[in-house]
């Protein structure tokens, strides 16, 4: 009986761990970090009243958002108006499905063969994430269209056009990484980077990918969708209370999973250092551990924590860039996407392929 239940328990455990950490931990903490770092950069104090260093501010805000009246503005298209925030959350939740958050493990000898710390080992691999992140356009477009507000319509139009434009550049950057690793599977990609992280041979792919993910998550300097000076807040102008909270939550969750993918594709995932793996370190220290965690589960946990640290560094970059760079103009935004990043990505694929075929 236990043998049959074990894979299911493992699956549910992974899902609850990931979902709980991202929706219940990373997103609220990131909102706090965002406000603290913005305060730091603008020479202010930031939230400091609720809990130590204001850490519980997000929790207090969450409770406040639920307790706010569920305002339904006049003239909205009701089914779509309520569907939009839910449609924004679903892709955010789905995007965790293929992200591995540690090396394959036996969980301290619980399993006979090492199991992947990944919710679903889909054969589509990283393509699944591209597909899901495209789906988040639906929530944005529906929210703007159903809101009966000119700012919302304009914001939704801009957001959709921008998200799909930069999706191309991001997709082509991913193709370069697939070319370098010869696989679409994220775990195999990490394993292929054990001697050399993809950031070195795929540096130009990274240069394309980084602005593309900033634009896809609608973050500054590409947050034309909600440029407050022009459009109030864009597509969610008419959303208040927890309905706005859901959009906010989805934004931070997508940001987290995209940072994780960036780390997995370019920065070696949970690998310790190029050419020096965790198993080498354990052997050098004579610990008798492996990343499979057969003898000691810490052998798996430490690489996972290292992976989370890298993701946090990326999340910090998101915040840092947001409060440092000014916003682009809309025509600049579209021309960067189509006239700069797209040709650069195509050129990069050609050169990478040529080098790989010749050398």
């Amino acid at each position: 009986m236990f043998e049959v239940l074990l894979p299911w328990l493992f699956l549910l455990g992974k899902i609850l761990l990931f979902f709980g950490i991202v929706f219940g931990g990373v997103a609220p903490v990131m909102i706090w970090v965002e406000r603290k770092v913005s305060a730091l950069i603008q020479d202010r104090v930031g939230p400091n009243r609720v809990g130590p260093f204001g850490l519980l501010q997000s929790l207090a805000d969450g409770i406040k958002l639920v307790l706010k009246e569920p305002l339904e503005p006049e003239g909205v298209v009701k089914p779509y108006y309520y569907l939009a925030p839910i449609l924004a959350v679903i892709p955010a939740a789905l995007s965790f499905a293929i992200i591995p958050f540690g090396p394959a493990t036996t969980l301290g000898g619980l399993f006979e063969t090492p199991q992947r710390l990944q919710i679903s080992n889909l054969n589509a691999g990283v393509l699944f994430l591209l597909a899901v992140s495209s789906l988040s356009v639906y929530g944005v477009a529906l929210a703007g269209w159903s809101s009966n507000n000119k700012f919302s319509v304009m914001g939704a139009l801009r957001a959709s056009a921008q998200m799909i434009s930069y999706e191309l550049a991001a997709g082509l950057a991913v193709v370069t990484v697939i070319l370098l690793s010869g696989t679409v599977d994220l775990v195999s990609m990490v394993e292929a980077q054990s001697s050399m992280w993809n950031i070195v041979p795929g540096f130009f792919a990274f240069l394309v990918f980084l602005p593309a993910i900033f634009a896809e998550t609608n973050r500054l300097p590409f947050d034309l969708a909600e440029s407050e000076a022009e459009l109030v807040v864009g597509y969610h102008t008419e959303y208040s209370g927890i309905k706005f909270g859901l959009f906010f939550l989805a934004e931070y969750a997508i940001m987290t999973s995209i940072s994780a993918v960036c780390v997995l594709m370019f920065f070696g995932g949970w690998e310790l250092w190029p050419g020096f793996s965790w198993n080498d370190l354990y052997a050098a220290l004579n610990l008798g551990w492996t990343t499979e965690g057969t003898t000691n589960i810490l052998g798996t946990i430490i690489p996972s924590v290292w992976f989370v640290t890298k993701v946090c560094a990326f999340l910090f970059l998101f915040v840092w860039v947001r409060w440092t760079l000014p916003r682009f103009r809309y025509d600049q935004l579209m021309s960067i996407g189509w006239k700069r990043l797209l040709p650069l990505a195509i050129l990069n694929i050609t050169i990478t392929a040529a080098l790989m075929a010749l050398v």
Partner: protein
Amino acid sequence: MLRIIFPFFIDRFPGRPLFSAVQFSQYWGVLILALLGVLTGVGALLASHMVGSRRFYPRKTAPYECGIPSTGADNQRFSVKFYLVAVSFILFDIETIFLVPWAQSFKGFVANGEGAFIFTVGFVFLGMLTLGLIYEWRKGLLDWN
């Protein structure tokens, strides 16, 4: 039945099932995550409807327009550019997806000494993609002035 619908696939990979059970079972995780997402969304909306305060009056529910009464329809006509961007996105995105199997099998071809062949195949395809981009560029489709 599947043999009739997908004869090509069945003949192409003899002895290999069309949908392998192992691969299919991986989608349970995706399904559970989707359900959790729906539950989060619906749960949050319901909770707010149950515990949230209600003091509606007409002015409060008016659409926001910088404090003045809203004028005109919200769904006004918008630039045709947005539509053109969407169309060219579909074209280029499909071409990107076609590049993925090429990229994935690239290393294998190079290892077999067929690197020049696989590179040429990809180069011709990428060249067509680039020609499309140049055509759009020259037509002024990418200008937003």
